[in-house]
């Protein structure tokens, strides 16, 4: 019983840390769909 409680505590702490890191991360969602078009000049 003690072992299960410890495992659950460890999982919830890991989950809380992961959620914090994920929410605090500043990465943006990259484009998910679209296509490629030619560039004719650098301007």
């Amino acid at each position, binding site marked *: 019983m003690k072992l299960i409680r410890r495992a659950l505590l460890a999982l919830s702490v890991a989950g809380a840390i992961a959620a914090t890191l994920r929410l605090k991360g*500043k990465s*943006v*969602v*990259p*484009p*998910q*769909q*679209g*296509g*490629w*078009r*030619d*560039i*004719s*000049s*650098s*301007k």
Partner: protein
Amino acid sequence: MIVVAGTGLVGTHAAEQLRRRGHEVRSVSHKTVNEIDPTLVEVVLLAHGGDHARLARRFLEADCHVVSVSDETKDVLALLDLNGDALAAGRTLVLGAACSPGLSGLLVSYLSKKLDDTDEVHIAVHGTGGPECARQHHDVLSGTALGWHEDDWLRRPAGSGRELCWFPDPIGSRDCYRADLADPLLIKHAFPHLARISARTSATRRDRLTARLPMLTPPRVQGDMGALRVEVRGSRNGERAVEVAGTAHPMAQIAGSVAASVAHELRRQAHFGTPVPPGARALGDNTLPNDALLDDIMQAGVRIQSFYGVQ
């Protein structure tokens, strides 16, 4: 005269492009390049496999501009150390003038203009030029991958960090991994303000599994189809924004065209009395004529595409 050292696919393609533009070009093997009188040479293009730093020093000391296509990390570090030699000679040493690094730096410069400010660059490359390039690709999956992350170099095992990257057709989507690539070093050199830089190369399960072994199959003599994808992140009008550009061509054509355009531009600017500032420079550096180089590469037949996407 422009000397092209290297008679492989990239060197041959670069020499052909330079001849088409009317330059006097001499193509030699890197084993015989020492027989050339450097006083007759204005620009030397190093397009062979192996180390470039020793030859670059010799030609800089002889007052030649040097263009190197080397993408081997240790060699690129040694070439960066030649900045003092280049400054002393009053000549320009352009490093990594191939696809990645090379065209990647030019695309970062191009895409950065579409944003108000940039802080992240993520590069992915697929394919190899000639056999030397294929051997290099085999080795990069077994070393340590460098990336720039919030003011520090991040070292991770090469072959880790799988990411599905979309390249222009006909390459499409490929699994890409961290690798011992020189791109982060040179992108950081050209764009010191960036906070995050990463570079990945496409690889199969077999590539990753056999990376630490000798190459099991000989590389293809005629080279491979290549592709490059450059993603620049930053902000526009106060909001996070992403711009992506890329290309897909035979890798030797991309690398040869970039190298030839740089050699052509160095010689042209010197003739017009507007020489590129001396020193060791990476493509994308704001002292280089990046727009003119990108236009020249496109005119040489390399199709550059930008990604339009929906977030």
